[in-house]
């Protein structure tokens, strides 16, 4: 099965966009989703069962939706800043054969306090859902060889 993990703080406006996206995906048949405030080691359990994993996270630094491969990379400890690479490394370190994984970076405007998404983030949600559909169909740019990513 494919696993999509939306990451973010819903009380920090656009930071919650990843979770908004996975909420809209939750009813898709055959797809497992997780909506999380931050990445935590307990997520290795669904990761172990997944064929592929997609992390969805807000990013104020990127200008367009960006889908890229992510690989395990050493993380010092398991703190609040654990990223997809660190989580995958953590999974590997406890003996899990990590599935192929991608990160979908969603361009947003602000992480100010608030529960509403900005207009930019709202638009990005729709675009992200299209890209995720492509990812699910394995037709998205970034799926397949490292060069494409």
């Amino acid at each position, binding site marked *: 099965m494919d696993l999509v993990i939306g990451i973010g703080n819903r009380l920090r406006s656009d930071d919650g966009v990843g979770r908004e996206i996975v909420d809209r995906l939750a009813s898709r048949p055959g797809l497992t989703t997780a909506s999380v*405030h931050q990445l935590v*080691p*307990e997520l290795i359990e669904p990761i172990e069962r997944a064929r592929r994993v997609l992390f969805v996270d807000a990013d104020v630094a990127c200008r367009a939706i960006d889908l890229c491969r992510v690989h395990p990379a050493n993380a*010092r*400890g398991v703190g609040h*800043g654990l990223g997809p690479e660190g989580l995958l490394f953590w999974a590997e370190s*406890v003996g899990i054969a990590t599935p192929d994984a991608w990160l979908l970076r969603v361009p947003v405007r602000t992480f100010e306090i608030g529960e509403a998404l900005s207009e930019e983030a709202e638009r990005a949600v729709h675009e992200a859902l299209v890209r995720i559909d492509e990812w699910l169909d394995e037709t998205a740019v970034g799926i397949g060889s490292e060069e494409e990513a």
Partner: protein
Amino acid sequence: MEKQIHIEPVTRIEGHAKISVFLDDAGDVRDAQFHVTELRGFEKFCEGRTLWEMPGLTARICGICPVSHILASAKTCDAILAVRIPETAELLRRLMNLGQMVQSHALSFFYLSAPDFLLGWDTDPATRNVVGLAMKDADLARKGIRLRAFGQEIIDRLGGKRIHPAWAVPGGVNRALTEENRTWIRDNLPEVLDTIRFTIDLFKKTFATVESREVLGTFDSMYLGLVASDGTWEHYAGMLRWVDQQRKPIVEAHDPNKYFEIIREASEPWTYLKFPFYAPKGYPDGMYRVGPLGRVNVCDRFGTPLADAELETFRDCQNGQCSGRVFDYHYTRLLEILASLERIERLINDERITSPAIRAHAEVNAREGVGIHEAPRGTLIHHYWVDENGIIEKANFIVSTGHNNLAMNRAVQEIAKTYIHKGEVSEGILNRIEGGIRAYDPCLSCSVHAAGHMPLHVDIVDSDGETVQTLRQE
């Protein structure tokens, strides 16, 4: 020439703190202080809010202990409504608190503290963390993850989410336990029970002698915890009991609603964390300890067979007296996980647990209320005063970490005196000092404020104000 050694920030605790070690002219330890350098001020900004908001509002004090604050707050609100909540609501609140106990203790043991003593105190800090632990013993790390996940899953299945569930409300809870969720908990209990029994055995083998558990120091104090009317370990209701180092009751059973008769709070200019003390003995002689070591020392029994068998072994080590070893916080944390799992099993098999009668409704019937229960880190006290419309006029929180403040300072002093002589320090020694704090599993988010994981920065400054040595752990 007098030197000061600053350890800032202390890592792998919930929040941001600094330790200062003061050396005398010979370079030996003269004093040590555990500073909490942030201010939060929740008591003040709760004023003017409605009673009904308080469980959700105070839950935001912390991302690790929200369940503890929700439950203490809901109990306080029950007192102001003057309601007796339905028995199923109490059973469910107990179930969630036990889930919180399991997940919080597992986090403390497997993620934060075990790397120190299972990898070795003097291991390179770059690998002395939970990832390093996983690389050394993947199976143990995996067990720890699944154990914590079990506790979190109970919270999630009851409250709808793992962090800040708006579930316990004045008068009860707002969602019943479904048969599906009850079955899930029941089906997953055997695995986590095996895990904790395996871990306790491993712990006992690794630290087979009492001497091996002296690494973080030992000192006498009083101990505080809730106990049931027959002296059994309690976590949700019961009476306050204080015992001395010999396990003789100082206060056999004090009404929690009158905590203020025997607990006072002192302040010091060098820290934002207040110092609760046992009033009859004054400050600072009224030092006592709470949390797993406190609860295990004060109770007569756990009241469940597996945990009671382990308690007997634990008690035999100190001839029936209290353990004063700081390191035994870890040991007793494991014992409490076992007891919590056995209690969860008992609750799940109680037919009343899925009843839909989960909430009593009432208006404001009292102008003041106290709610006390045992959070993983120790006794948690909420106390509110309201106007006739239920608007908060004043709030007082005495949180677990605060109770242990005097003891944490004492622990730092004891370790520093043992491991620092003539100004000679090393990272391994400094980590033992940090370890002394970490054993208490302090939650500075609750006590004042939080900053998260940060690098270690140590300055050694002489009496002329010059930095003579700097140690960094990035």
